[in-house]
């Protein structure tokens, strides 16, 4: 009886532990970021025409090098206001897991071919 109970608990724990499927950083960037940061990641996205503050050029090594990985993580998760920047950069914490945001930070470093210069 105990054996059956253990098996049942084990099965249940697998079912409950299934997380939402993690997406690749490239796919997340394509779906969520390109609308403003552009197909090329250069800040020239579809939506920028009437924006009072232009989106960051992710290929600009100089400006991206001025941000630490922790700041990039924070701005993706909590939005522009969290680092005293524009509210036009929204918080994506309800869309991405922390692991996906960490992958996105790495992806941004590839786009700018830069690291934090701090």
């Amino acid at each position: 009886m105990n054996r059956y109970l253990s098996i049942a608990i084990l099965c249940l724990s697998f079912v409950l532990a299934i997380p939402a499927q993690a997406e690749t950083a490239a796919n997340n960037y394509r779906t969520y970021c390109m609308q403003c940061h552009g197909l090329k990641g250069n800040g020239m996205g579809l939506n920028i025409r009437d924006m009072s503050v232009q989106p960051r050029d992710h290929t600009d090594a100089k400006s991206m090098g001025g941000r630490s990985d922790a700041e990039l993580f924070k701005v993706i998760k909590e939005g522009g206001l969290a680092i005293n920047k524009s509210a036009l950069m929204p918080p994506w914490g309800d869309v991405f897991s922390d692991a996906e945001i960490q992958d996105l930070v790495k992806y941004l470093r590839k786009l700018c071919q830069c690291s934090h210069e701090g």
Partner: protein
Amino acid sequence: MQAGFRTGVMVLMVASLLWGASISWAGDRGMQLLQQQCVSCHNLAGPAPATLSELWQRKGPDLFYAGNKYRQAWLESWLQQPKRIRPAGMFYIDHIKPGTKRDVIDPSTLSGHVKLKADDAKAVAAALVQLKGNTKLIKAETHRADISPGPLGEMMFDKIYGCMACHEIEPGYGGLSGPELYTAGKRLQPEFMLSYIRSPQAWDPKIWMPNKHVPDDNMQKLVNYIIALSEENFDE
């Protein structure tokens, strides 16, 4: 006198039966049309896409909660004269290309929506409002038409919450990756707007609209601002 009264009651009963039957007939016929003509582009049964690859394949808006989303009168009218609501199509990436100042829409990749005759549009609209997915989410909302947005409405939309980044509030002003909002007040039920702003991911887990965590009072103001916008009839 009594006989006249009885006849009147009989006429009324027959009329109401016929009216009821015509509604049900319209709904049944509409459901047939939906199954024959709409199901290849629209999800009528749910659930919403759970992965990005499913999201990218979606050809038209999910309709399994159409009865909790759209206003029936708008559906009936729009189906006869369909006009693009999402300037860059269903998934914007498939319909844009790099331009000189910014990425631009590539109109050659966009196609129109099928146009229905008046009686078909009526039947389909009647069937669509019977699709009631996510009713629990709708029941959690109460629209307060008395909370006026005042002059803050546009400021909230543009600056505080940045909705204009992705949505147009008048033709030619705002972002293009989301649906136009200057017609949303005519198109959508207020409770749907409240619920969707509260949590876009509760309706559509992978959608590229973020949750801005708008407080309740401001959500009412945003929705009432959107309703007021639609009364300006920018689309006519």
